[in-house]
């Protein structure tokens, strides 16, 4: 049993709804009409393309192609993290890419083998779909954690230098700021987990129930996914910070000057 399909006509009817926010923007002079239209267009084009390539990937279902697609997703994710944390791409792209690649592939492998008990590790349906969802959800944590760490360290430069002068290694001197970044990155997900299931349905559960799964299957998936997302955020933020420390400090342990682009 599949969900009720949405015809193009129905989608057009849904688009009509946009008249309300556009009207509000015009009437109250919010000045956001342009960005509403631009964002909706982008969403449409991007999702349309995703529909095409997902159909293609599902039909082909070739492990090598799937792995290649995963690399494309990790690259895009690394660019997104760096762009949104105002960090210097030259110094951070490689460490963030390595951290995401290692932690995401490790996590999907564990999830697919231990939790889902799959025989085919790289099947598009699970490898790409679950991988994409895990990665998408770890981006925010990465952005908060990485920029939180470097901003806090920069703000408390004298404290950091005092620790170095007292004989600390870069890691020892930076530890309070690693703690800061990591807990800032994890806190939102801890909050989300605590309120999950109160009244509102999480997006993934909605999708599964509409797709015909029983609510009991849907909640098990939801719990498994949340725990995996949370753990992944912890691993990937830690690795991003640790990997980037190598490129963002000079050999005297001083923070490089061009870390931030702004």
């Amino acid at each position, binding site marked *: 049993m599949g969900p009720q399909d949405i015809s193009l006509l129905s989608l057009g009817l849904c688009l009509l709804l946009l008249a309300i926010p556009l009207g509000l923007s015009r009437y109250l002079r919010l000045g956001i009409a342009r960005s509403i239209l631009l964002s909706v267009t982008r969403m449409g084009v991007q999702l349309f393309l995703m529909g095409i390539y997902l159909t293609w990937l599902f039909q082909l279902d070739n492990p090598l192609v799937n792995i290649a697609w995963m690399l494309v997703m990790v690259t895009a994710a690394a660019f997104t993290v760096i762009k949104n944390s105002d960090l210097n791409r030259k110094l951070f792209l490689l460490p963030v890419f390595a951290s995401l690649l290692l932690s995401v592939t490790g996590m999907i492998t564990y999830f697919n083998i231990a939790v889902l008990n799959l025989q085919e590790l790289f099947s598009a349906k699970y490898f790409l779909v679950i991988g994409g969802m895990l990665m998408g959800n770890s981006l925010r944590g990465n952005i908060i954690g990485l920029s939180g760490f470097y901003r806090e360290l920069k703000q408390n430069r004298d*404290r950091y230098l005092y620790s*170095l002068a*007292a004989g600390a290694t870069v890691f*020892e001197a930076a530890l309070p700021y690693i703690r800061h970044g990591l807990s800032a990155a994890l806190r939102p997900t801890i909050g989300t987990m605590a309120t999950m299931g109160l009244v509102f349905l999480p997006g993934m559960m909605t999708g599964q129930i509409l797709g015909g799964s029983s609510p009991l299957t849907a909640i098990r998936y939801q719990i498994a996914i949340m725990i995996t997302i949370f753990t992944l955020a912890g691993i990937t933020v830690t690795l991003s910070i640790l990997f980037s420390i190598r490129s963002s400090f000079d050999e005297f342990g001083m923070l490089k000057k061009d870390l931030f682009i702004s």
Partner: protein
Amino acid sequence: MSRAGPHTDGPAGTGRTAVCGYESVSVTFEGKQVIRDFSLEVPAGGKVLISGKSGSGKTTLLRLLLGFVQPDSGLVRFGPHPVTRRTVWDIRRRVAYVAQGLDLGSGPVDEILSRLFSFRANAHLHVRREETDSLLTFLELDPSVLKEQYESLSGGEKQRIAVLAGLLLKRGVFLLDEATSALDEQLKEKVVDMFMSNPDWTVLAVSHDPAWRRHGAVRHITMEKR
């Protein structure tokens, strides 16, 4: 105890031992020259006072030894070695630095101190409670200060905690940047005298405080503003 020296100074074989030295050092920050052609030898056990107007590069001299600043030209030495990316990590284990900003960290004082001893370089030091207490008494601080939040202390109290931390680290070389500026006269004399009268300690002090200048053992250098 002087872990930093003595080291024989240079190939000339003069027999003199130097803990640290500057040879024709110049430093420029953002196009402005803060130190020009500065030379100084600090022998083991030597006491040197550097004074001068603000902006004359006094603090930079100490930061050069810690590897926080690199000279544009000239050579900064610690023991027999130049300060380089390789040697600097060892140098930082041999000096005690009291920074002018006094930004040691946040939280209770005893946690800030125990963090210093959690560094692998300091793990061999076992600070006894009596030792801390007797230093606190000497610095005219009540032991209850250890439980207080460091940020809430007064400037004079922070300064004494920074001096205490430097002493507990048991280093032989002290780099003191305005380490007594917020203390009252009588305590100032006491602290200056403690640093100056220990023959094993090498002291490089930056200060425009007369209490340091008055001390007989000190060699006084005045930096000129550029």
